[in-house]
């Protein structure tokens, strides 16, 4: 305030404002971090998951597998099941497609129907071919595939599971 006496009242007002602002910021910023903390977390969990012996999987017939991952959400443990199909195209242990059985429409689980020779989703009749392509129904894209896989020395097929 140029040319004016800096009054006692103005001093109190400004001090109150500054201290109040400091308290507001001092509590507000930590509170924001506290609230949004879960959103800032990147959970990339990855692991090689064994899904079955290669010798059990026949060429031409989809082999169904499933595995469970345990997740810690805050203070709660949740186990989620995942499933899929291995489709071997020849005897070559790298010549195969591994599909995730989660429908690309709204995440229901598709089932292999032997007589229809297709994966059918029970929820909205999504239909996929043996290698995962959309044959009919609402799904917007082919079934997801696990592209990273390996066969261990004792003949177990493992897929690389990555979340997030």
């Amino acid at each position, binding site marked *: 305030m140029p040319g004016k006496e800096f009054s006692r009242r103005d001093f109190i007002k400004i001090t109150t404002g500054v201290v109040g602002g400091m308290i507001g910021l001092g*509590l507000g910023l*930590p*509170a924001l*971090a*506290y*609230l949004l*903390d*879960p959103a*800032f977390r990147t959970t990339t969990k990855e692991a090689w998951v064994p899904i079955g012996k290669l010798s059990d999987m026949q060429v031409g017939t989809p082999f169904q597998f499933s595995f469970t991952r345990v997740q810690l959400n*805050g*203070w*709660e443990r949740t186990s989620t099941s995942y499933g899929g199909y291995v489709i071997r195209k020849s005897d070559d242990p790298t010549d195969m497609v591994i599909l995730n059985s989660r429908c690309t429409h709204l995440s229901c689980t598709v089932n292999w129907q032997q007589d229809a020779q297709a994966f059918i989703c029970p929820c909205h009749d999504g239909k996929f071919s043996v290698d995962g392509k959309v044959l009919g129904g609402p799904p917007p894209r082919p079934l997801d595939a696990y592209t990273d896989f390996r066969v261990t020395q004792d003949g177990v097929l493992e897929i690389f599971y990555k979340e997030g």
Partner: protein
Amino acid sequence: MWTRVYQWLDERLGLNEMYKNLLDRPEPQGSWWNTLGSASLFLFILQGVTGIFLTVYYTPSPDHAYDSINYIMNGVALGWLIRGIHHWGATLMVIVVFVHMLRVFVTASFKYPRELTWLIGVGLFLLTLGMGFTGYLLPWDQKSYWATTVGTQIAGSVPFIGDFILKALRGGPDLSALTLQRFFSAHIWMLPAALAGLIGVHLYLIIKHGESHWPGKED
């Protein structure tokens, strides 16, 4: 530009008048003892804000109460700070409200025309203690479990109706999930609502009557 926006709002809301009546009130004599009421109000708001934030993660169930608080303390960014403020703020609020009450008593500020302000203030003090009592159980650890066992048992020692009071407090004869749930409900809904309402009346009366005079030699 901003002055015109402010003037438009002021004409309709009476901001200047509100400021003059609420915040620019004259004090008979400045004394730090006269700030304890404002300090209590500040702590009430602080407890409200940090308490609301705590409910984002806290779960009032015997299965999860302890684990969820453990998660607040060790899992969430700055959770220890929010809970720490709420924890220590609670103790501080009981102290500040009590000292505020002592000051009003010592300066005889409860006399005419401020008897109602005093009575409501006593209610506010009891509600503050109630907040402390109900909040203490929520961590659901050994200390809080047994403190509430003892506390409700004491309430149960009232002649004739003691057993009824004990069951009403615990939601049954024993401490259980029902106890935790009703203490939580009281702690975040009923008691704060009662506190907020009474604080409103308390403040209205203070603004209406003004601060009492500091007692002089003749008083």
